């Protein structure tokens, strides 16, 4: 990745963290905030805490509370997109680990998502039908998906040790094409192009979470349930990833990203850490794949293509490279973009819907939707090249300084 300055971002994220004088403060007030100065860090531990400012903590709690009630506010069609977006966010976090934090650009994410999706589908599949199915529980299938995809990631990680930058990107893209070939040929698993196979069956303790029905005595639609399922996994995996990046592993990754030779000289074993980055990232992709096709009911082998990989890259770029929250925001943005463009008929009621354009005009409204998709991505990145995270920083700083501009 074109060296995105992580340090700068972290600074921007916590500008009120003063430089520390550990030795002194740690000895006296480790972990305790001064009563009148809630924003003053008194220990390294506080600076590195998961949610290191009160506002961050409050914001996250508020967001989570809002998310928890969302299934009773939004229409099923939106909950469906949310569930897809949450699943995609898990994949985007995974990609951000390897690309944003460890600096290894991977266009092979679609392949690992496919591995996860097919593993989970095969584990939960009905043993009596034509396609491979083991009839196992969903709670087993998702970890299995993570494991299989993670192993696949480990296997290809040696490539990353040998190759750099765009070369690595296109080689991992080769993986996607090879994958497409494998999925096309392995029809007992995938059902073949065009028809596909049944996706992941979400059955936990006898309750079908991908179908409408009672859960804990409350009637919920499939979309409401899957919203919660994906949300819970997303929160858990996001916290895990955030912790990972705060640990020695995360620091090693950042060092490798910023200058791999320097990192090696400092005693960071490149092979090991790159392998870990690919393994963990792919495991996230595996979970994402399993969840995506818990929401969507059919897996078509044609889905795991170049476009899917690029969409994940777009998610982390739009959201903000090397931030967990950015990956989530980016996944939401990219997943909702088609929905937003589908509002085109409302905004442009004068554009014809007639596919034959009997009333004249250059394009119909569906073509306009497609064009808007491209235009919005371009416009967003041209105006806001640092992504949603950068936008957030700008807005926050504006209000912080208000009413003064600077």
């Amino acid at each position, binding site marked *: *990745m*074109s*060296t*995105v300055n992580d340090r700068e971002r972290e600074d921007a994220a916590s500008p009120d963290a003063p430089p520390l004088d550990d030795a002194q403060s740690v000895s006296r007030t480790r972990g305790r905030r001064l009563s009148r100065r809630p924003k003053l860090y008194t220990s390294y531990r506080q600076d590195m805490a998961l949610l290191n400012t009160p506002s961050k903590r409050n914001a996250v709690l508020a967001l989570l509370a809002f998310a928890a009630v969302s299934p009773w506010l939004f229409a099923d069609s939106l909950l469906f997109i949310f569930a897809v977006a949450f699943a995609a966010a898990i994949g985007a976090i995974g990609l951000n680990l390897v690309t944003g934090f460890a600096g290894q*650009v991977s266009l092979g994410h679609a392949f690992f998502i496919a591995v996860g999706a097919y593993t989970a589908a095969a584990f939960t599949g009905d043993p009596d039908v034509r396609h491979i199915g083991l009839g196992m529980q969903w709670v087993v299938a998702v970890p299995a998906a993570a494991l299989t995809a993670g192993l696949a990631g480990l296997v290809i990680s040696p490539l990353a040790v*040998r*190759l*750099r*930058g*765009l*070369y690595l990107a*296109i*080689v991992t*893209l*080769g993986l996607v*094409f*090879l994958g*497409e*070939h*494998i999925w*096309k*040929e392995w029809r007992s698993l995938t059902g073949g192009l065009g028809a596909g196979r049944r996706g992941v069956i979400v059955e936990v303790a006898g309750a079908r979470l991908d179908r409408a029905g009672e859960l804990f005595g409350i009637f919920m639609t499939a979309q409401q349930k899957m919203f919660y399922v994906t949300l819970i996994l997303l929160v858990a995996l996001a916290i895990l990833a955030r912790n990972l990046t705060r640990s020695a592993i995360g620091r090693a990754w950042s060092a490798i990203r910023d*200058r791999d*030779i*320097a990192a090696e*000289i400092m005693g960071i074993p490149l092979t090991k850490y790159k392998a870990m980055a690919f393994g963990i990232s792919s495991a996230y992709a595996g979970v994402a794949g399993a969840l995506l096709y818990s929401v969507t009911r059919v897996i078509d082998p044609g889905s795991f293509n*170049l476009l899917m990989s*690029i969409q994940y*890259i*777009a998610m982390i*770029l*739009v959201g903000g*490279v090397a931030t967990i929250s950015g990956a989530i925001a980016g996944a939401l943005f990219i997943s909702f973009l088609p929905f937003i463009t589908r509002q085109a008929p409302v905004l442009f009621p004068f554009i014809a819907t007639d596919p034959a354009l009997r009333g004249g005009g*250059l*394009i119909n409204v569906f*073509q306009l939707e*497609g*064009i808007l*998709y*491209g*235009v*919005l*991505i*371009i416009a967003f*990145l*041209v105006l806001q*090249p640092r992504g949603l995270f950068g936008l957030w920083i700008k807005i926050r700083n504006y209000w912080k300084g208000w009413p003064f501009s600077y």
Partner: protein
Amino acid sequence: MSLLAQSLVNGLGQGAAYALIAVGFVIIYKSTYVISFAQPALMAAGATAVALLTVQGGFNFFVAVAITVVAAAALGFGIERSILRPMVGKPVFIVAIITLGLDVVIRIITNRFIGFEVRPMGDPWGLERTQVLGITFQHRHVAAFVTAGVILALLYAFFQYTRMGLAMRAAAFDQETALAQGVNVGTVFGLSWAFAAVLAAIAGVFIGAGSTIDQGTWVVGLKALPAIILGGLDSVPGAVIGGLAVGIVEALFATYQSTYMPWLGSNFSVVAPYVLMLLVLMVRPYGLFGTPEVQRV
């Protein structure tokens, strides 16, 4: 033996078109360090323009190509000036995703013009062929090969012997130094996009020659990806050799794989270039002709 020679000849014919697209990618990469995902769409747009001008517009094929070349150059220049110039100095992957957005936009507009029928290219070569020593040479393949050769020779001359070519090489070598020496780097960027668009359009013409184009033609543009990596991202000769190699590998696998390696599954020829790319990179991590990055701490 003649089967082998035949598939080599066919592969070279296809490969010439791939090489043209690949060179477009490389020219943009050299000047701006961006892989432009808009190339496939520009290719399809160029092919569509020629097809519409010849069959619907009734223009002579070569006139149609000339008009398209001028239009493509203007389009490439315009896109760079209006959309990509503000992004100079921004992370290259952001720019790459922007080109992807461009790709979507150009493709949908192109599809609108292709319409619901397939479009014959209206080229003079058609399916004519000549037998030499038991090997069939398709005229369109020969034309593609010769055209690619001429264009690349012209490009070489341009880069070697003109002031602007020198400026482009200088900018590719080191933008800031070139800027300090009075090179108008902006013009260089614009010109690279114009070149790339023209090359893509001509490649599109040869992809459609003797056949038809439809809304799916843009996919062929992706064949340039293994080609440029194979040859080395920043090497024009590398892109040419990469493109030809992709053509040949495809043809060889198409001819022999079902007989000798059926266990690879049907139609392995489509992915074979990627496998070749992988193998080459294991030995040479910067492709065959790419410049290794100087590593400093």
